[in-house]
């Protein structure tokens, strides 16, 4: 409020307890050990489990960088004090490259029908798509996308960190320019990335809105994660007077907004395919309306849209930590279910396969992701302490 002065408030250092650190290392170790076992038992299924978790954490990391970039482009003042949390998510981006390489190089026909030379030889449609869907171009595309993301994350986050040291306003201008470029690159690269990794699992099927669908899930869930991180900072008093329930409230609003956006895009994709009723398009939903998959499809509608939307609607919902935490966790779980729902019918048409292999892959990735993100937060200030708009963020206040 009015009495606060920028000079007399500073964030505490984020420090993770040894137990938490060990727990994450154990999760990473145990998860990847289970995954290795999975590859020995059933490598086809293990690749699917790996892909789901890989895509999930790619979304979280990219969501962090996207959030940072739009705040720069909008010259937003309110979000300055939570921006570093988003930048921490983006620190995982180099690992997107490292952990994605095995998929593009080794997964082959275990995941992608179009990498099975025998199938392509007897399928005219796949031959027609071979100019795009072939291994060399797949690897090149992935390298370009991941390389560009690493470059932009190093630049945009780097400007912010440099500003912490010398306090020069010019870094903000640099960040703005790079962020504009990043948004253009991101829109294209993430669309192609999701087409390459997820849509091509069923290479005969196509949906022009697929990239937007994946983006909608990405942004809804990464905003939920950011809200949880901001809540953690508020509740542990790590940045008293700097990050407050006001910031959490606005992050909650954005989460609610993009919950509606996800539903809008998901329904747009469904309705056009349902209406036109073309066999090559409906195959996607036919696969997902038989066996146990129908329940997963309906669960997405209920728990990814209806429940979070109504639960985030009242004002108090976004200012009550326990309630908000529960809703954000639900959204994060549903993001996993969504990606799982996109990937797994490719592996098992008839039944919903979920057991230790999928859990192992997720826990392993979660461990690595947690280690990277908390290490970043431990190494740097919890908020951008010399940002020219920091005072606006301190006084941020959500009116009725």
């Amino acid at each position: 409020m009015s009495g606060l002065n920028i000079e007399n408030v500073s964030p505490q250092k984020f420090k993770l307890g040894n137990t938490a650190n060990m727990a994450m290392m154990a999760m990473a170790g145990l998860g990847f050990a289970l995954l290795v076992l999975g590859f020995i038992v059933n490598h086809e299924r293990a690749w699917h489990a790996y892909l789901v978790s890989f895509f999930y954490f790619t979304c979280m990391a990219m969501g962090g960088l996207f959030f940072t970039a739009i705040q720069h482009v909008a010259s937003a003042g309110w979000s300055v004090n939570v921006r570093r949390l988003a930048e921490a998510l983006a620190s995982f981006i180099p690992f997107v490259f490292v952990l994605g390489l095995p998929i593009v190089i080794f997964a082959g026909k275990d995941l992608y029908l179009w990498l099975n030379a025998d199938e392509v030889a007897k399928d005219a449609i796949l031959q027609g798509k071979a100019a795009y869907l072939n291994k060399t171009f797949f690897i090149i595309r992935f390298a370009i996308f991941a390389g560009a993301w690493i470059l932009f994350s190093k630049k945009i986050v780097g400007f912010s960190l440099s500003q912490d040291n010398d306090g020069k306003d010019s870094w903000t201008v640099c960040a703005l320019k790079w962020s504009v470029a990043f948004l253009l690159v991101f829109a294209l690269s993430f669309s192609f990335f999701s087409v390459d990794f997820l849509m091509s699992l069923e290479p005969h099927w196509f949906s022009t809105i697929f990239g937007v669908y994946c983006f909608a899930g990405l942004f809804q869930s990464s905003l939920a994660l950011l809200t949880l991180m901001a809540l953690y900072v508020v509740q542990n008093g790590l940045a008293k007077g700097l990050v407050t329930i006001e910031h959490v409230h606005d992050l909650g609003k954005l989460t609610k907004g993009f919950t509606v956006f996800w539903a809008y895009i998901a329904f747009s994709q469904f309705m056009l395919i349902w209406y036109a009723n073309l066999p090559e398009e409906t195959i996607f939903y036919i696969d997902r309306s038989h066996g146990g998959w129908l329940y997963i499809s309906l669960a997405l509608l209920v728990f990814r849209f209806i429940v979070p939307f109504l639960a985030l609607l009242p004002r108090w919902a976004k200012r009550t930590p326990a309630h908000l935490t529960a809703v954000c966790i639900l959204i994060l779980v549903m993001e996993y279910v969504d990606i799982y729902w996109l990937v797994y019918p490719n592996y098992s048409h008839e039944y919903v396969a979920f057991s230790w292999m999928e859990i192992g892959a997720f826990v392993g990735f979660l461990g690595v992701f947690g280690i990277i993100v908390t290490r970043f937060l431990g190494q740097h200030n919890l908020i951008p302490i010399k940002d020219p708009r920091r005072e606006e963020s301190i006084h941020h206040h959500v009116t009725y």
Partner: protein
Amino acid sequence: MAKKRLSGVVGFWSDDHKIVEAAHKMREAGYKHFDAITPFPVHGMEDAIGIKRSSIPYVTFIAGVMGGSLGLLLEYWTSAVSWALNVGGKPYFSLPAFIPVTFELTILFAALSSVGAMFFLNKLPQVDPPIIDPDLTCSKFALWIPDTEPGYSPEKIEAFLKQIGAEEVRRVVEF
């Protein structure tokens, strides 16, 4: 035009922080019907003078639900009851096809009702309220206590306003 009617006491400040503090004191002293008049939105003022949350969100929600239901009902009645038409072999009542109109009517009802409720609650279009002081739109901040205040006593209020730091106190009578 209705007759202008204005009677009360007004205290002036030239600093937005000080007027928020003064408004807090005013409320603690038990004043209920007073208002703040400032040239720009002052942070914390709604809390200081105890303005309750607007009821517009409830209007929006109820109107949205009504709009959605009516939209769905309209589509059901026109395409499945009154003039059942086979479109592409799909069922007469096809929910996916009806969602866009339902959605649009939800938005239309919710938006128009919100604007309507806002006008009603703001007493718009009352565009020529009595002018207390022209400087209140550019450089001065005021607390305004109308004569509807319970136990209204101009002398007491004038003394209280001076006590909480008003730079200038004026009695306004205008009919």
